[in-house]
């Protein structure tokens, strides 16, 4: 179900000190895409406002600042946190010792980023009044700085700040083919997902996300 594009898109400006929009092919020793991916943008929008009755469709991402890279190496761990293990430790004692489960991982990430995300609300019901309601709610939340959880820029530890875009926000002068970029994941019933890619092109600092073609 597609919303008609009578409405101007909803827009939010996000910025932060660090960002890492990890390329799947280099996700262990992380390397970021040079700009925010549509799925990361969706994540930011969902952190601010989301209801089961609608989905977000990201249309454009404006890049407001020159791309700057930095690299860090951190001590991370090999295992994932599991709710069930934590419950067992609570019952039976024991715990997790990160020192014994170390993995040093390198990250090539972005610093000092700012974007404007433009997106449409697509109500699952397809009712126009629903859409208007969601749009207004989103605008109010952005203006007041409310969110369900702090949005982040690709990685949880890279917190994002957000606010309404100002008329002065202009994309940078940068036109380039970025190659294939992760668009989003197609989730199945069991929670596993299949990554989907699209040919990304930055036109005068604007990444346009084409409407999804049928898989």
């Amino acid at each position, binding site marked *: 179900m597609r919303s008609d594009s009578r409405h101007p898109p909803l827009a939010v400006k996000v910025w932060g000190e660090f960002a890492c929009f990890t390329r799947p092919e280099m996700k262990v020793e992380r390397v970021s895409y040079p700009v925010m991916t549509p799925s990361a943008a969706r994540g930011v929008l969902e952190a601010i406002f989301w209801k089961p009755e609608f989905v977000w469709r990201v249309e454009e991402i404006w890049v407001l600042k020159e791309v700057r890279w930095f690299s860090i190496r951190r001590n991370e*761990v090999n295992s994932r946190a599991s709710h069930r293990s934590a419950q067992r430790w609570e019952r039976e004692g024991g715990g997790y010792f990160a020192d014994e489960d170390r993995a040093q991982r390198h990250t090539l990430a972005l610093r000092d980023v700012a974007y404007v995300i433009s997106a449409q609300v697509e109500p699952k019901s397809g009712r126009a009044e629903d859409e208007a309601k969601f749009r207004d709610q989103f605008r109010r939340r952005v203006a007041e700085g409310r969110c369900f959880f702090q949005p982040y820029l690709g990685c949880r530890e890279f917190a994002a700040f957000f606010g309404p875009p100002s008329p002065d926000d202009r994309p940078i002068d940068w036109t380039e083919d970025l190659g294939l970029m992760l668009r989003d994941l197609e989730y199945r019933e069991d929670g596993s997902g299949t990554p989907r890619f699209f040919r990304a092109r930055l036109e005068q600092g604007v990444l346009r996300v084409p409407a999804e073609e049928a898989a």
Partner: protein
Amino acid sequence: MFLEKLVDYSRRIDLPPRLYDERPVRYVIQLRADGRPAAPEPLDTADKENKRGIPRRVPSFARGNVDVPLLFADHAEYTLGVGREGADPDKVRSRHALYRSAVAECAKVTGDPRVEAVATFLEAGPLQQLRLPDDFDPSALITFTVDGQFVVDLPAVQQYWADRNEAKDALEMQCLVCGRRRPALRILEGKVKGIPGGQTSGTSIISANAEAFLSYGLEQSYIAPTCPECGERFTKAINSLLADRSSSRRIGGGVFVFWTRDDVGFDLLQYIDNPEPVLVRELIDGLMQGRDLTKAVDETAFYAASLSASGGRAVVRDWIDSTVGQVKDRVAEWLRRQAIVQRNGEEPRGQQLWRLVGATVRDLNDAPAATLQALLRSALLGTPVPERLLYLALQRTRADLEVSEAQASLIKLVLCGANERWEETLTRLDPTLDDPGYLCGRLFATIEQIQTAAAGGQEVKSTVVDRFYGTASSAPATVFGTLLRNARVRLSQLEDSNPGAYWRLFNQLQDIAERLTTLPRTLTLEQQGLFALGYYHQHAENRAAARAAAERRAQAQN
């Protein structure tokens, strides 16, 4: 983008057929068209020294611990049913049976008479028809010719090999390199060889071998779906770049590779590896004039990556996507920034990249990959060199008790990147520069010379440099009072013994001391860098002056 550009590059090079690789093949069993041996013994192609055979392109993939025959290019267990010493006979028998049936199947599918000849030979019992040499090595690879034709080279065999190993049960996904929906690789087939610090068997670019690395409930390489063709192409392309010394450079814990989209004869290494003055001049002149003549070359895309390894994984530390023209301009700028007067006062020059890396460590092999990365970025992208390298270089000067040309060059490079003020200076002694750090450096060099001159050719056991370089270069106020008093005493000794040196050094000391209005208690990192440069410049200047004086004397005598 990295992988995509590698796949593009793979189309430019002569790539082995799919799932083929170049490996040393030692024995060649020569057959006739009817499947009987043309020679009683297999041809041994080993060289005398390391007993390796001749490299040939043969079927190859990482077998792991599964028994799979490598068609027409396997060792004796598979090919002939001859085990290594202590091999399990059952295993040898079953492996040879696998090999036989694989050849038989290949003969059936391809219908090629030459493959059938091999099958006939194997069915008739190879050991009954062949005499193995006395020094036969069962672990060496064996291949076949039929009427002089290598079976592995037959297109039908190559096609069969590619089809046979096509993943059948693989998930079909969108390949993240070519974008097509193809069966995805569960595990990449080839390994990347030649990245320092990784496992000796090689590293992988895509690798998810622990739970925390998985995503979206997908296992292993499915997290980054790659079709077999792209996977093979980018692995072979990176290996080809890494194996070629004209497209890769290994320094310390890292390696960097670079290439251009088309072969336009641009050789980056001649500028950063061994910057010949003529080339450097050419490059810098080009920067000044702009260059239209070579536009087509300059617009060619240029790529570079710096890589290191972590266990079995390749780490992409940096990825640079630029053009030849841009790189030329930036390298010219980089060479200009680091150009420094030579130790003996001769014309300024730039330093080889590895020397700059070496200026930060005691042993070049200790240099972390980050150092190389920072310097390369500054050379190729024009980014400033991080101050950390300044700190490291200064530490080395304190430990070495001297400032080497490479250290001076690196210090200048860092300072110029950090502060535009230094752009046009710092190449050689600047008598008008009034920075207290710089003046302290010059003063210290002068005091050292006074001491040397006063000793009159005798060795000084413990020089001022040995004792005071560290403090003088960081907290001048604490030591310079004493140093100057001592220097004046030595000067007065000189006055009688060597009046020429006395007046020269006296004036030099006076001149610097007059400019230095106050002795700073401590020097900032930047000032410490300027101290090192002042010290270096003053020495270079004095050596040049001494040389010029010697030349004048020599001329006067003639």
